[in-house]
């Protein structure tokens, strides 16, 4: 029996600035544990908007969102922050590493915030994540001393630090060249296969999507294909 990790029920969203435009229309789907799902669609069809809602960062929508069977509506900002910290890992198109910190510290930050383990253990776990991504040798460098592909791998390590229920990515390979894109894809594949990690990745890279377990295709704010 597969376990539902995330469920979207009748999600609708409109922007009201400058005129009311409906960008998400009746979105319904659920994701099971261990699935590697990609969302594709033309630019501007609402993929990012949907991902921000699913990630609890955007709370201005209609419909229901359940993460780990918990209803997200009516939760306070601090409670949502805690859920993101504990259950969701993020990888964006841009790496968003903090240049003031070392690579290792960047990976550790969400773990220190969760404080499930003490600092020593968090550091040890961060090293392990960096090892999975093959960048343990860069651990003590400052974040801005790495190449683009390496930075994105650090961002993935950071997403992994709290063993999240689901990793969400918004075009995580969008800024990378072909070689690095394939590298990141291989890492995602390895994560699902070896660690049964659930992944939800927005992409416009057809070859990337083709290799995932499930493709959700969107057009004009609707899901037109889910297979």
């Amino acid at each position, binding site marked *: 029996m597969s376990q539902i990790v995330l469920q979207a029920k009748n999600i609708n969203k409109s922007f009201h600035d400058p005129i009311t435009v409906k960008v998400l229309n009746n979105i319904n789907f659920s994701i099971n544990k261990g699935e590697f799902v990609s969302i594709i669609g033309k630019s501007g069809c609402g993929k990012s908007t949907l991902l921000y809602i699913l990630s609890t*960062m955007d709370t201005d929508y209609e419909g229901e969102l359940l993460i780990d069977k918990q209803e997200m509506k009516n939760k306070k900002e601090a409670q949502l*922050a805690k859920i*993101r*910290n504990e259950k969701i890992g*993020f990888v964006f198109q841009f790496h968003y590493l*903090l240049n003031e910190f070392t690579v290792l510290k960047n990976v550790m*930050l*969400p773990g220190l*915030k969760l404080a499930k383990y003490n600092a020593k253990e968090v550091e040890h776990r961060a090293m392990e994540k960096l090892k999975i991504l093959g960048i343990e040798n860069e651990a003590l460098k400052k974040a801005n001393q790495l190449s683009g592909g390496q930075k994105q791998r650090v961002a993935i390590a950071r997403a992994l630090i709290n063993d999240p229920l689901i990793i969400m990515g918004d075009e995580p390979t969008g800024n990378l060249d072909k070689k690095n894109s394939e590298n990141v894809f291989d890492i995602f594949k390895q994560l699902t296969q070896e660690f049964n990690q659930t992944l939800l990745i927005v992409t416009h890279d057809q070859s990337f999507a083709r290799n995932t377990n499930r493709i959700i295709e969107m057009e004009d704010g609707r899901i037109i294909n889910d297979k």
Partner: protein
Amino acid sequence: MNYKLILDIAKSLLLARWKQTLVAAIGVTFSIAMFIALLGFMTGLNDLLDGLILNRTAHVRLFNEIKPNPNQPINASDAYKTHHNFIESVKAVGGRLEIYNNAAIIKTLNADPRVLGLAPKITAQVLYNSGATDITGIVSGIDVDAETKLFFFNDYIVSGKVNDLKNIANSIVLGKGVAEKLLANIGDIVQVTTSKGDIMPLRVVGFFQSGVLDIDKVQSYASISTTQKLLGKGNGYITDINVKLKDLTLAPAIAKEYAQLFRVDTEDIQTANAQYETGSSVRTTISYTVGITLLIVAGFGIYNILNMMIYEKMDSIAILKATGFSGKDVRRIFIAISLSIGVFGAFLGLISGFLLSAIIDQIPFNNPGLPAVKTYPINYSLSFYIIGTIFSIITTYLAGFFPAQKASKIDPVIIIRGK
């Protein structure tokens, strides 16, 4: 809450912009240093000016005033008890300046635990004879030891020895102004005429300068026994008893009490010197206003730096929020930054303020009117340091609060979408 993590992040953000933060901290340092130096100097000046009058003024003065009797015979009449009685040209009668039974009064005062000490005194109106002209003046007969101990008489003797007044019979310490008018030197003999017309030669043993010119032009001092002789009175004759209390604020109450108890006139220091209090409080208010204004300016410096930092660190704030830091955590990070600037700046400010005070304290200040003062006066009261610290922490907290509030409200979606 995970304060260690918050402080750690605050520290990194701060060090990444250490030049700007240093400038902000120096703003605080400067204002705290000025605050402390200014208050120290102003209060030092206050103490000096107050000392000029207050140190030498009795907390409670006992004396007899020659005045009309408030109980005129008409008041004793039953027939006119309920009437308003107008009596014109009432004269003082049987007035005597002497405090009766003063030995007993002194004994009682010495036994009063609220009394620090007392100095008996005789005030005699005299004329100093200088050739053909006479100069009006006052000779105060004093107990030299008590006067020195309680009213710092010693500090105002500019030449000669205070003890000679006690040891040499028929000696006098002339006010500097009096001496100049009489062209008198130490060792000279001056002639003094009392109000009763008796002339007495007195040997000059020293000069006295209070710093208040009007006093120095008329005032001279002699021992109690010399003054008694001058007035032709016996050795029990005393016109004033100056009392110094342990607690100055009790003076008005105690003055009333003594007036009743000893049936004499009394005057308390607050009534006698009300105007000096006002001067002091005006100076203090000005110092606080300037100091706090400087701090507020420094606060704006911190506010600017934090705003800039938040503007630069939008991405970092967005990712912190995306990875699970709440708005409250973000606010705490920036308040921690602001407070560290404040605490660091204030700490340096306390040290610089102290050093600045110490430097001012070394600057020579030679005023002929103030013989006991050689350098600018400084008050090193701990309270300025405490108040300065408290104010700097409050201003830096407020300066940090509004930018921090703004940072905590940053919507990560807007930032991330913008990339």
